């Protein structure tokens, strides 16, 4: 740290080409997520389904005290839970379709959100550190998640879910490559 650093060289950018899995067809530089992420999301909502059913049934049971419901209380749980499951099943597909990211020479761009759309651009020089992590469900499907942090951010600025581990690692190296010094 105490010796003067060599003058900053023009950064050599790692080639983004090996990262390319099949991206959406409309633009060559936008990349999509691994299709396996849909299953991860769907299994996640499947796990939450009993909780939804119990909450709905309990509410219906409580309502039954005051009002005469035209159906048994447990039916409310079954109906609400299946509606929720169908909804999240559909949403997982839409979320997957909406998710895309692009690695430009200077910046990382991501776009996601089905109803509330978000497009974020993080200049690569601003990235302070990058995490690659994967939960048990992710691992079961051979997926990993990349989280990106900038200065001053309390949590991750952006997390890209559903990447193949080698894609995740290549993305991390590409994002950090700019900042490494000889």
């Amino acid at each position, binding site marked *: 740290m105490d010796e003067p650093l060599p003058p900053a060289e023009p*950064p050599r950018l790692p080639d983004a080409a090996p990262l390319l899995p099949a991206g959406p067809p409309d633009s060559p530089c936008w990349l999509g997520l691994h299709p396996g992420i849909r299953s991860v999301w769907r299994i996640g909502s499947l796990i939450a389904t009993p909780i939804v059913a119990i909450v709905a049934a309990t509410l219906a049971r409580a309502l039954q005290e005051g009002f005469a419901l035209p159906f048994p209380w447990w039916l409310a749980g079954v109906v609400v839970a299946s509606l929720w499951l169908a909804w999240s099943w559909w949403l997982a597909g839409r979320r997957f379709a909406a998710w895309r990211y692009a690695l430009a020479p200077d910046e990382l761009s991501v776009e996601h959100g089905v109803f509330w*759309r978000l497009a974020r651009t993080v200049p690569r020089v601003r990235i302070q550190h990058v995490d690659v992590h994967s939960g048990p469900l992710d691992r079961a499907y051979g997926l990993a998640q990349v989280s990106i942090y*900038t*200065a*001053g951010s309390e949590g991750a600025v952006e997390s890209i879910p559903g990447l193949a581990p080698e894609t995740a690692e290549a993305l991390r190296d590409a994002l950090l490559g700019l900042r490494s010094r000889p």
Partner: protein
Amino acid sequence: MSERAVPPEAWHRLHPLTVLAELLRLFGQFAYVLVAIVAARFLGGGERFDDLYFAALGGVGVLVALLRYFTLRYAVWEGTLYLRRGVVFRQARTIPVDRIQNIDLKQSLLGRLTGVVDVKIETASGSGSEAELSVLSRAAAERLKAALASRQAATAAEPQAAAAPAAPRVPLWQATLGDLLLLGATQNRAGAILGGLASLYFVVGGYSGVNARAGVDAARALGGLGAWAAAAAALLALALLVAGGWILSILFTVVKYAGFTLAEAGDGRLLRSYGLITRYESVIPLRRVQALRLVANWPRRALGYWTVFAETAGSFVDKEAGGASIVVPLLDARERAAFARHFFPGLDLDAAAWQPVSRHAIRRGFLRAARLILLVFLLAGISFGRWPWWILPPLLVLAALWAWLRWRALRWARAGEFWLASGGVWRRTVWIVPEAKIQWVAVEASPFQRRLAIATLEVATAGAGPARGTEVVDLPAATARALAAALAARAAAAGALQPDGV
């Protein structure tokens, strides 16, 4: 550079009073528990607590405080701040001095009597201060400040700054008593005090059966006054309460910000100090300022005054506790542009070409307010039965007016190398963000916004919490996307020249 290279004589300990300060802090957190225990003992009504608990609690506290004093060491060596502490879990922290964002000194009344200060050192990480040295003797704190400052100046971009041995201080702003009185008088705290009084009234009224009608009855019975006179007396009492709260709020402000001084040291650092009882002193390197925020509520704006905040990277929580990132509590509106130039020499605030957002913002603002009003009316109408429905049309007119004012306040501009944004009807905020300090940009659109082809542009700096950056809502979507691309490109280009990314 390793910690082992630091010669033993460079390591320093905290001031011995650390033990006392630590005890006070530990027990300060449990003060209300202790008070409750003692009160319970004296009243004899509560359960009896064994003295053993007290002794054990005290003993643990003393042990913790002693350990802190005996295990914490710090050193400044070769441009790095080293911190060592812990017995079981040893921690060694290394902070390169040129990464330090700001240095805060806090001296409580007790500290001023005993000549010790709390020192907090912040880097750009999001949570908490990175080094808290509490407490140091005044002299040690000054030595540390000087050691950090000289190193910072040496590593700063301007090489001639390092040559200047002792930079002269140029005062930028100094609080007069008139400033402080005006500041207190226009503080929103009056509202908070009023709310407190109102809730106190309800709580007390609920317990003792006192209410407004009883008060009026009492007044009537007392003086044999008519109902109108009694009502007037009640109003007078209320006015007195409000005035009392207001005067109290002015007093608080005067005590908190007494002697506020902002000075520029010649080496590119700002020195700020204020406080009558607890004294705060901070060093803010100018090149670390991520954004300026000019804020004025309606009364202040009408009188022509603005409050200026300088955002540095780091934790928002600590900054708020340390008296916010305020640099000028009350700046004359005519001096805004000149003052901003001290921070950003290239900026001409008065020449900025402000652009409005989409007119759809009026409609969206009105709908949002109208929805809230209708919901409240519907709920209240259902639960009360009798409800003054005739207020609804004038309220809706007010909502429309508010929506229009909100649209008028929402503006943005690009002035040279600066991104400007403003907003807020009652509390107006004007942001000045050097485009070189932008961390990321985002364009967001809700389903309602997408139907109208408008979007929200978010521009983030390294400031934390609500001070993170600007949000311009309801821009035309194409404008938002174009601005996002341009700002991100500018940030990327500038970032290549900033090795630490801040």
